[in-house]
């Protein structure tokens, strides 16, 4: 066991597997704090993952790939917001619809644009970053340095999100809208606009998460490669009590359990039992930590402004 814990790969895998959960969990935090349940994050990740590769391939720049993914992801998010906020449709149904759409749409585009052998192998990847001093520290350096640029971006975004949500006026307004939209409106706040903002941010973060999968960790797209991370991110966000640090913590826990199950594969235990580890650990942690997760009071409830 000690050997496993001292293997830096355990910890860098933890970080690598936590990143594509933490990003959408962060996005979901914004969306749900503004009162919109966004299950479509799974689909947005997938679509973004595809367009990241497409744009990176077309432009020859991974950065433009990331940018393209973000733009497309936010467009999908805004379409979702339009139906969920303006048309007050059921948010969960819409989310599921977008996920089905995304799965088919990306697979279809993959075939028609790139054919069956998959996305081009010369697709550029986002760079890994070596941090000057830290990289020379043994063990720590192997974990904290040399990760994808998105990992560092994520860490910055977590702090930025926390600041934005809890220490700015706009953040205060977003939270107010998710708690009691009527009260927010009577305080002169435009509820609809802020909900669009919350959802758009969830699109932004999910898109970065999707791009991380396709051009951060890899340089290819394959069908359904988000493989349920959007849903698990939802769980991480709830576990984290709708806060950026909490979401990150829950994502780390899940990433750690996944990384651990990878390390344990060489033990005699059934591989399938080992692969239950992240899920069982999450439930145990949740029950152990206890404490109710109280969602924003107006989460998931469409709001119609008075007329």
């Amino acid at each position, binding site marked *: 066991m000690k050997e496993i814990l001292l293997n830096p*790969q355990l910890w860098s895998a933890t970080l690598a597997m936590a990143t594509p959960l933490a990003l959408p969990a962060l996005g979901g935090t914004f969306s749900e704090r503004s009162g919109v349940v966004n299950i479509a994050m799974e689909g947005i990740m997938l679509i973004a993952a595809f367009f990241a590769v497409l744009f990176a391939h077309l432009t020859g720049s991974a950065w433009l790939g990331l940018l393209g993914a973000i733009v497309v992801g936010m467009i999908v998010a805004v379409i979702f917001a339009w139906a969920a906020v303006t048309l007050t449709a059921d948010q969960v149904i819409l989310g599921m619809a977008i996920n089905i759409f995304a799965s088919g749409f990306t697979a279809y585009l993959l075939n028609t644009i790139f054919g069956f052998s998959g996305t081009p192998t010369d697709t550029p990847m986002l760079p890994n970053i070596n941090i000057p001093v830290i990289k020379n520290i043994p063990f720590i350096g192997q974990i904290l340095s040399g990760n994808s640029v998105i990992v560092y971006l994520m860490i910055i975004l977590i702090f930025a999100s926390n600041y934005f949500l809890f220490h700015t006026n706009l953040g205060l307004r977003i939270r107010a809208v998710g708690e009691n939209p009527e009260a927010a409106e009577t305080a002169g706040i435009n509820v609809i606009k802020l909900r669009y903002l919350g959802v758009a941010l969830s699109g932004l973060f999910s898109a970065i998460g999707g791009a991380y999968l396709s051009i951060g960790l890899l340089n290819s797209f394959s069908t359904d490669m988000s493989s349920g991370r959007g849903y698990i991110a939802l769980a991480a966000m709830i576990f984290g009590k709708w806060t950026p640090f909490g979401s990150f913590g829950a994502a780390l826990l899940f990433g750690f359990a996944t990384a651990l199950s*990878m390390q344990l594969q060489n033990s005699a235990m059934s591989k399938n039992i080992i692969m239950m580890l992240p899920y069982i650990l999450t439930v145990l942690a949740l029950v152990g930590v206890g404490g109710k997760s109280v969602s924003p009071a107006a989460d998931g409830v469409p709001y119609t402004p008075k007329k």
Partner: protein
Amino acid sequence: GCTSKTKQQSSQPNSTGQASKNKNFKVGLVTDVGGINDHSFNQLAYQGIEKAKNELGVTVNFIQSKQQTDYVTNLTQFAQQKYNLVIAVGYLMKDAVEQVSKEFPDTKFLIIDSDITDRPNVASATFKTEQCGYLVGVMAGLMEKEKNAKLNDQNVVGVIGGMQIPPVDSYIAGFQQGVKAVNPDTKVLVSYTGNFNDPASGKQMALTQISQGADIVFGVAGQAGDGVINAAKEKNIYAIGVDADQNYMAPDTVMTSALKKVDTATFDTIKSVLDNNFKSGLVYFDLANDGVGYAKPIKDVPQSIVDKVDEYAKQIKDGTIKVSDQVQK
């Protein structure tokens, strides 16, 4: 040369009676839920029927199943529409093929990776992938004794499966035996990603094995295997591809690939039905009939090793070496 000739033939339907006759010959393909992009047998089967369309002028069509309950329905649709040959991809369709083939005795069926023997109108293509797994294992075992920039001095190789299912495990079993045959001290790490569609976890799994000393990793995990190759490339070690020649994905990294020629199997079966010598029951695809094999290694692999591998291939073909398809725990 041969290809261009047949192409010409099919593009001129009136030139011979053969082509127009073939045009009325209909082949239907039902994929399993993995779909046509699985970078694995569904895709290869599809390539096989496309080849038949281009070279033999037959009419082809395919359905991607969305869920397991679609199998019977989809097979039935083809049979009802009087398709001459219906191809079912994957052992999961065994029950469905058994059921539908009984209802439509005039339709011929081919099922990939299964073992239906008691139907006159069903052929089961079984691939001895333990044999090609063995050969790439031999190659890996021998490479471990080499010294070059990509190889470390630990004697460890790794194999990463998708799920613990026979078409995956036969590769892994062969690989294990092949490595041990030439290098008994080599440690063979075996892991599973638990799915075929998550390259991110494939990559982390490979990185984990690399951190445990592996410098050659063999991915048998469909799309998740893409991540294995990516990890190998990033860490500057070797990868081994699976099913098709995956060298194009990372030319300096993928030292060879274990081949499972599902495309050949489907093409040949279509041809056999056309030529009226369809054989029902188990049809083995192995080294002997070139149904499995390994892709041309990159130049990092010394010719001496390639020769050694070919020697083993010969011994498998002539039965001197028997390869088991059971994974060693």
